[in-house]
């Protein structure tokens, strides 16, 4: 029954997957409550440009994506806060242009035998020990930041204007939150891929939102659903021989469907 656990690649996949599931679910709470799911998707697609840039310059594509995504996330933040442009318009512009930039760069790279597919759709079973270290390190950093600034992030998510009036450094906290989103997106690419990472940022948190009446409970439930989606999805993909990233995302969606039904049912009785 537990035969998948015998393989080192499966162990790495599960460990990496659980961390990514936890990370996206927790950052996802802010993304969902602050209405930034489109930003998450925009940053995820921007990472394609970063990955391509890494290949072209001969540096680690994931680290290149970190730098690139940070720049894009802050770019979107600055344009929306300063420029008087709506957030979705700003994301729409960055979304397509960074993808186009990536496609352009890929065309310039000689040889052209890069495994782009694994970046677009994830290749969790191919996670190396090196990749896992990066996931662990970045994951620890992001979770530590959230733990330390839990109350501040809650305030700026709930009521940014009053947070600022009270004296909290609201703009700095907002940009920090954008940075955490960018980091989370990049370390999740290996697991579910660029195309699907935004689903992990939104779906478990949205499921938790259905059932939560306090912020702490939403955090805990979202984390639970995130980890559950990854573990169940990976095991299913192993036995059904399906694409792992897609199976994880569809598992998360199924959980969302169940929470929706549960809430409907509870409200009806």
């Amino acid at each position: 029954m537990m035969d998948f656990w015998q393989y080192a690649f499966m162990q790495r996949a599960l460990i990496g997957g659980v961390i990514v599931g936890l990370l996206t679910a927790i950052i996802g709470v802010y993304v969902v409550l602050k209405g930034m799911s489109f930003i998450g998707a925009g940053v995820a697609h921007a990472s394609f440009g970063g990955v391509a840039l890494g290949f072209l310059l001969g540096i680690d594509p994931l680290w290149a994506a970190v730098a690139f995504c940070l720049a894009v996330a802050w770019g979107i933040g600055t344009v929306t806060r300063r420029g008087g442009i709506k957030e979705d318009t700003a994301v729409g512009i960055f979304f397509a242009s960074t993808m186009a930039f990536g496609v352009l760069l890929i065309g310039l790279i000689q040889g052209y035998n890069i495994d782009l597919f694994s970046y677009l759709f994830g290749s969790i079973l191919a996670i190396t020990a090196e990749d896992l270290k990066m996931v662990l390190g970045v994951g620890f950093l992001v979770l530590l930041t959230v733990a330390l600034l839990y109350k501040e992030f809650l305030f700026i998510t709930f009521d940014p204007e009053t947070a600022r009036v009270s004296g909290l450094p609201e703009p700095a906290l907002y940009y920090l939150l954008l940075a955490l989103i960018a980091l989370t997106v990049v370390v999740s690419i290996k697991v579910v891929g660029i195309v699907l990472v935004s689903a992990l940022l939104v779906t478990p948190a949205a499921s938790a939102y259905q059932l939560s009446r306090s912020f702490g409970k939403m955090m805990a439930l979202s984390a639970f659903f995130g980890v559950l989606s990854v573990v169940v999805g990976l095991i299913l993909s192993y036995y059904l021989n399906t694409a792992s990233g897609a199976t994880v995302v569809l598992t998360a969606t199924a959980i969302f469907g169940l929470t929706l039904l549960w809430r409907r049912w509870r409200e009806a009785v």
Partner: protein
Amino acid sequence: MSTAPPIIELRHVSVAYGTVKVLDDVNLTVPEGAFLAIIGPNGAGKTTLVRTILGLVKPIEGEVLVFGKPPKELGPLRREIGYVPQMHTVDLKFPVRVRDVVMMGRYARLGLFRRPGKADHEAVERAMAKVDIQDLADRPLSDLSGGQRQRVFLARALATEPRLLILDEPTAGVDAQTSTSLYELLRSFQQEGMTVLMVSHDVGVVSQYVDGVACVNRRLVAHGRPEVVLTDDTLAEMYGCQAMFFHHGHVPHMVVRAGEEKK
């Protein structure tokens, strides 16, 4: 009697969003311990005036002083300001308990990274007791009525233990009786020494509780004691000529005439 410096002072303040001027040459002085109402029609610039005082918008001309300092330079003095924003600015379906909302009022005092301690929990309890919402403490915000929610946000402002309390239309969408008890509560805070600045639509009722009224419609139309300020002329200037006023004693009641309706 020595003249204490005013808590809020605006000198020739003009504010614009883009090229549109929303406040034009406003002068306003709020002495310590006052209870002042800012009234005016929709879009008059009341919220903008409040946001200017709080340092959220920068005036294009003029000078703003709060506690004798420009809002940007308030530093720790910011914690002496309690702010109750206009209701539509927050997401009312946000999953958060009443107690947790009120605790937000303590965050800035606590400082970054630090968790609330015993003193903070006590301050939250006191603030909730003052506005009589202790029995709602563990309820989610989304379950509450409009009036209860307003009290939660008022409690959050009180939890900062402010010297200056600023409220933006705290009685919007709240029934008359609830509004009245809120005004009474605010007046009791004033009697304890707090300075209260409140934006309101409720021209007639509010004048019974406050000791000053500022009528705003892009300009500061009038400013002073309610019975002096709230004349037909002021109100007509502020609301345009479609308004008519009845007098009961010295408190005017406003009736807005629609189109060509007869008097």
